[in-house]
């Protein structure tokens, strides 16, 4: 697997397509390798691999059947996974985002439902926070075990800027609108937005829809009920967003700004902006780019409540966690069950916390005091623990081919190319199967 050349994205599509075709042609769903005493674990290649390596080593110390860890550099992960998943090179266990990211695999009958495994080992379910665990369920069956940290989206702020303007972190939508007005008067961009990344813009929709319509609307939409996009709640959420945009909350050049190149975090850290809605990873992003700011002036709160809205103000959106799923045709289901039990071990929790990830096991809070930023971790853990609903990011909840249409729609609504009718039409055109 490692020796196969990584194909560069820019290579003409044809060559890669053919490579894929060739792989598919020789794929027969056979076992992953000739060796009968090992199974392969495929993970997204990044700094987090340190923990995965340690756990595999721990597992291999006592197990007859050995685990082999394969990593694929982040940007290529999903392409690579989709290409190998039904070939003889397919992994037995693999990293994913739950939701729509595994739905095509479930439909292709490639994944093992873990319910039988959990009947034998109830801990595989009971040791995880339910709102997170549910993300990897498809049609009522479980297909994943949480295996990294949770990433709820929070409303970050620059404490100093807020103090200078006499503004507090808003608890309600009206407070947010008022804060925007005050901050504009102080010549500060109220909210930093890296619209060039597009998924950043999407997070505003996710939260507002949740607060106004409750988590039900999106659940129904995802189940194929396209009418919900044209309901009163949907239109109200869009109107409120429009009001915020027109109030100048995001300035006017947000689509030229990115989070991923460090620009929007720099806006917040430098005090040119007061707020940024971002996944919990923003904390470590800021800590790396500007440690003083992260330590002294980086504030955070949950997304404001919307008065009269149907959604609980404690609901969250974001990436609930990453998951390990198991391929149906694996020969080592029992050994894999043992391996997955490590995902709620003390060692796992400690190792994840050490690299800044917040695991979603029920025993996590025991270890938070020993971490180097316990306050932030505890705040997050409490949010996730108490969240009545935790909505997976829209682009991950829908099957992959909808990602671009969603990004286009949210960007066009923000910059005025789409009105509410246009946005609703775009969302109704998404495919749910």
């Amino acid at each position: 697997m490692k020796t196969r050349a990584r194909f560069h994205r820019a290579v003409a599509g044809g060559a890669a397509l053919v490579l894929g075709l060739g792989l598919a042609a020789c794929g027969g769903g056979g076992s992953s390798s000739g060796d009968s005493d090992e199974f392969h674990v495929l993970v997204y290649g990044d700094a987090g691999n340190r923990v995965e390596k340690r756990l595999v080593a721990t597992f291999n110390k006592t197990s007859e059947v050995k685990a082999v860890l394969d990593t694929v550099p982040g940007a290529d992960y999903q392409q690579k996974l989709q290409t190998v998943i039904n070939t003889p090179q397919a992994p037995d266990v693999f990293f994913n985002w739950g939701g729509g990211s595994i739905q095509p695999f479930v439909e292709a009958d490639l994944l093992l439902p873990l319910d039988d495994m959990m009947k034998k080992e109830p801990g595989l379910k009971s040791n995880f926070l339910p709102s997170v665990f549910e993300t990897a369920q498809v049609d009522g069956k479980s297909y994943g075990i949480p295996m990294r940290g949770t990433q709820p989206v929070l409303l970050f702020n620059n404490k100093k800027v807020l103090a200078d303007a006499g503004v507090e972190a808003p608890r309600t939508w009206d407070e947010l609108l008022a804060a925007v007005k005050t901050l504009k008067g102080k010549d500060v961009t109220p909210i930093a937005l890296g619209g060039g990344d597009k998924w950043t813009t999407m997070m505003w929709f996710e939260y507002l829809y949740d607060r106004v319509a409750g988590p039900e609307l999106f659940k129904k939409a995802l189940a194929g009920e396209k009418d919900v996009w044209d309901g009163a709640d949907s239109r109200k959420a869009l109107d409120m967003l429009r009001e915020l945009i027109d109030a100048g909350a995001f300035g006017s050049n947000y689509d030229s700004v990115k989070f991923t190149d460090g620009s929007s975090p720099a806006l917040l850290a430098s005090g040119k902006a007061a707020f940024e809605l971002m996944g919990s990873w923003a904390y470590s992003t800021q800590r790396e780019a500007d440690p003083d700011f992260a330590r002294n002036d980086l504030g955070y709160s949950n997304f404001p409540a919307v008065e009269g809205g149907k959604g609980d103000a404690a609901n969250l959106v974001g990436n609930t966690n990453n998951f390990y799923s198991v391929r149906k045709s694996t020969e080592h289901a029992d050994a894999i069950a043992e391996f997955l039990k490590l995902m709620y071990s003390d060692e796992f929790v400690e190792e994840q916390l050490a690299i800044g990830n917040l695991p979603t096991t029920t025993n996590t809070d025991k270890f938070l005091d020993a971490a180097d930023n316990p306050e932030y971790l505890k705040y997050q853990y409490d949010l996730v623990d108490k969240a009545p609903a935790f909505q997976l990011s829209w682009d991950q909840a829908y099957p992959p081919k909808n990602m671009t249409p969603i990004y286009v729609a949210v960007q066009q609504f923000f910059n005025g190319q789409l009105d509410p009718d246009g946005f609703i039409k775009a969302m109704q055109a998404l495919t749910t199967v």
Partner: protein
Amino acid sequence: MASPSKDGRPGIGWALPAVVFFALFAVVPLVLVAVLSFTTWSGLGSPEFAGFDNWVTLFHDPVMIKSLWLSVLLTALGVVVQTPLSILLGVWAAGPQRNRAVLSAVFFVPLLLSATAVSVLWRALLEPNFGIPSQATWLFGDGNLLGDRTGAIAVLVLVSTWQFTPLHALIYQGAARAIPAVLYQAAEIDGAGRVRQFFHITLPQLRNAIITSVILMVVGGLTTFDTVLILTQGGPGTDTTITAYYMYQKAFKGFEFGAGAAIALLLVVVATAVSLVVVRVSGYDKMAGTKEGM
């Protein structure tokens, strides 16, 4: 087999490696892509035959049609902006002075950088709050270059001009150096000024080079990809979603390989047709060699 044939020309066997390579890496993939364009395939399982579905969808897809126009627009803008610039630069660099050699070496630096590096660099330079626009608000306003249709297209043209003008200047430099000096000496005797010399000697003599350069720009322009991927990701909305990027989005972001293959094939057809048109219109195909005895 590889021995010279009777008439002294190299045997056909010498072409074998090239033919095999071409077949393996160009013809076979092209045929497979063509087959794939009549299937639906997500990368999971085997491709399923879908008849003309992908093609019908494609021709009714507003984004697809817009992307073709955008590709043509960007290509045309590239030709219009880069050609005069690179002719002037190339002709200037063809002169004899030593400082020109040094300067032209500096001009060629952008060509040595990968398109990805170039795009990342420009993205940073044009960042509205911390880059150049923030220092020159009188010129850039709020700096919303990449988030605005016109601005984003202008940036894409600027970046590819910055990167590829050196290549075309190089072509013109070589061609300009090959112009016989006697022509200029004769013109000078007749009293023609430098501007007149340029328009009546240099430019006509560069005709072949211009055609070569334009064909390269057209094919390169239609298949531009990296700059869009890094600078705009097809945005804002679909305003810079050129065909090559749309193909990538369909195939590798959305895992609709059948649709992606159809776009790829369409791009091949369009690019081939356009370069054939350029060759035809310019009369390149009928042009006799200017060398003695050829």
